């Protein structure tokens, strides 16, 4: 992972998830956690120790997991339904659609270890399709925090928002990208750097890499605007269209499939309302080879250097 020469402190979003959920549960007795033999992998061990009766484990049964979550919400509780993202969203997709989204149940779906986080475990365990699948489900916010501060804020927002949501909790440690004290505004992108030469729109684990790419470009005199899009749905259309109009070129970066995620959302929007030159970085429609998360991110061009190269490429092809 290339993040520049300086050592950058890395932080674990999963710890923010676990700590925030415990804090929320202390404040509100309606908060319960639901998992499918995923207490450890969801970092819920401490939650279970403090609230044993509010930790519901349905065993290895994701369809039941999501349905039970919807039922708990029907009963007036606020369930945080947590499991590995590939199984939560893949196995239980119809339950997410029907029991949670269509029924507008106040269920917080927490996808753990998303994207390429499971590295060598292979494509069965990668969750690169979740953003594409869930973007197509009406009424379901799709939320991808980029750092611990955003993870904590997203959990608090979801606990208070009386409807369904999907939170994609990053696994590998990331640098802080959220300015101290920055508000968490649902549906709004956060502009992290100013610039009118090119825009980099990133989500989740790719945001810190987008910032590193912007730093590389700045050395060359290129001023890149970096947008952190936390809500893939609903997308901040104003921020995206403004960026398209003002910079003319956009690079998107996501630890997810390019068939339907952030990049596809940006492309669909800009193509219809403010055409811009686009480079969409992510996992192309393929099953990953064997390798660690770091290897796979490099393999698929999800590094600061690749993001910067895509930005240069866009600018080289700009209309004179």
């Amino acid at each position, binding site marked *: 992972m290339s993040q520049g020469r300086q050592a950058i402190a890395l932080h674990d979003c999963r710890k923010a998830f676990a700590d925030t959920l415990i804090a929320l549960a202390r404040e509100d007795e309606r908060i*319960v956690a639901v998992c499918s033999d995923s207490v450890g992998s969801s970092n819920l061990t401490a939650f279970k120790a403090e609230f044993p*009766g*509010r930790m*519901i484990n*349905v*065993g290895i*049964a994701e*369809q*039941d997991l*999501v*349905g*039970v*979550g*919807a*039922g*708990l*919400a*029907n*009963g*007036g*509780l606020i*369930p945080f339904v947590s499991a590995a993202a590939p199984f939560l969203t893949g196995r239980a997709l*119809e*339950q997410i659609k*029907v*029991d949670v989204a*269509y*029924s*507008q*149940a106040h269920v917080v779906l927490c996808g753990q270890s998303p994207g390429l986080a499971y590295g060598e475990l292979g494509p069965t365990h990668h969750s690169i399709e979740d953003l594409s699948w869930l973007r197509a489900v009406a009424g379901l916010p799709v939320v991808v925090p980029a750092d611990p501060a955003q993870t904590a804020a997203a959990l608090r927002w979801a606990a208070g928002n009386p409807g369904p949501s999907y939170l994609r909790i990053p696994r590998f440690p990331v640098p802080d990208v959220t300015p101290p004290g920055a508000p968490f505004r649902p549906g709004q992108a956060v502009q992290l750097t100013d610039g009118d030469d090119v825009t980099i729109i990133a989500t989740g684990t790719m945001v810190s890499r987008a910032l590193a790419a912007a730093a590389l470009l700045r050395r060359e005199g290129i001023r890149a605007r970096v947008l952190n899009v936390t809500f893939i749905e609903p997308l901040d259309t104003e921020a995206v269209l403004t960026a398209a109009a003002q910079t003319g070129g956009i690079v998107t970066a996501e630890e997810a499939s390019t068939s339907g995620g952030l990049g596809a959302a940006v492309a669909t929007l800009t193509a219809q309302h403010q055409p811009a030159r686009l480079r969409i970085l992510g996992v192309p429609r393929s099953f990953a080879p064997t390798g660690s998360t770091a290897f796979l991110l490099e393999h698929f061009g999800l590094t600061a250097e690749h993001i910067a190269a895509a930005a240069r490429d866009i600018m080289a092809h700009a209309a004179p």
Partner: protein
Amino acid sequence: MLSADPAAARRFAGLRTQLAQLAPEQAAPFLRAMAASVRRDDLRMVHQARLGHLGGDFSVADILVTLYAAVLNVDPMRPLLADRDRLVLSKGHTAGALYATLAHCGFFARDELDSFAAPESALNGHPSNTKVPGVETSTGPLGHGFPVAVGVALSARLQASSRRTFVLLGDGELQEGSNWEAAMTASHYGLSALFAVVDRNQLQQGARTEETKQLEPLAGKWASFGWEVREVNGHDHGQLLDTFRRPGTTRPVCVIAHTVKGKGVSFMEDRVEWHHKVPSAEQVQTALRELSA
């Protein structure tokens, strides 16, 4: 979202109070009359809409009417009351029977039934909880309602509430694996206030269940999953009421209701094609006569 019909809700409240004081066999004639009325409404709805699932509707009508009129603690004027009992219709394609029953209870006006499946109607071919008061969760694809009902029953346990949860399942629906996940969870947590009612009409969309994928020994399956099993005639209102009134003890309760698909109309009974066949005008008249006898 539809709203309650206050006059019908008052009548329903009166009926509930009356039936609560009666022994099951004394309550049965009232329930039988209401179920016949529900079937007649449903028949007209399906005929007008040119779609629906009359076979399954008629096999569950007596179960639904018994639950709503004499068992469930629900108030159509306050359909989201926290401590209401819950009925989850897992076999969502029998929405017609549910809608007609809810309308009889005053959850919404009976006139609304005329809009079944019409453009912009709240009454979809499958029930939606965001459109129809009294519907607890949206269903349609099979194998969804049961896990949701388990969650509802778990919430009651966590809140120390005495409310009860019923889920109505098709027999063919039990071929969906999610049901058995839910059955294990309910049993593991000892959810004795949860009743799973199986509409055992022996038929699924394409053929008999035992020809399609064998369910028997069905009672043995439920028992081996840790459930108390009760078997009843699903068209005998006295039997249904008696078994629904008897609370569970330590285990969740499975009621296998032996039913006849298309019950009440001679030419529909136990005929696979009446899963979702639409009757002709002449057939409607014949059926209405039989349902008024």
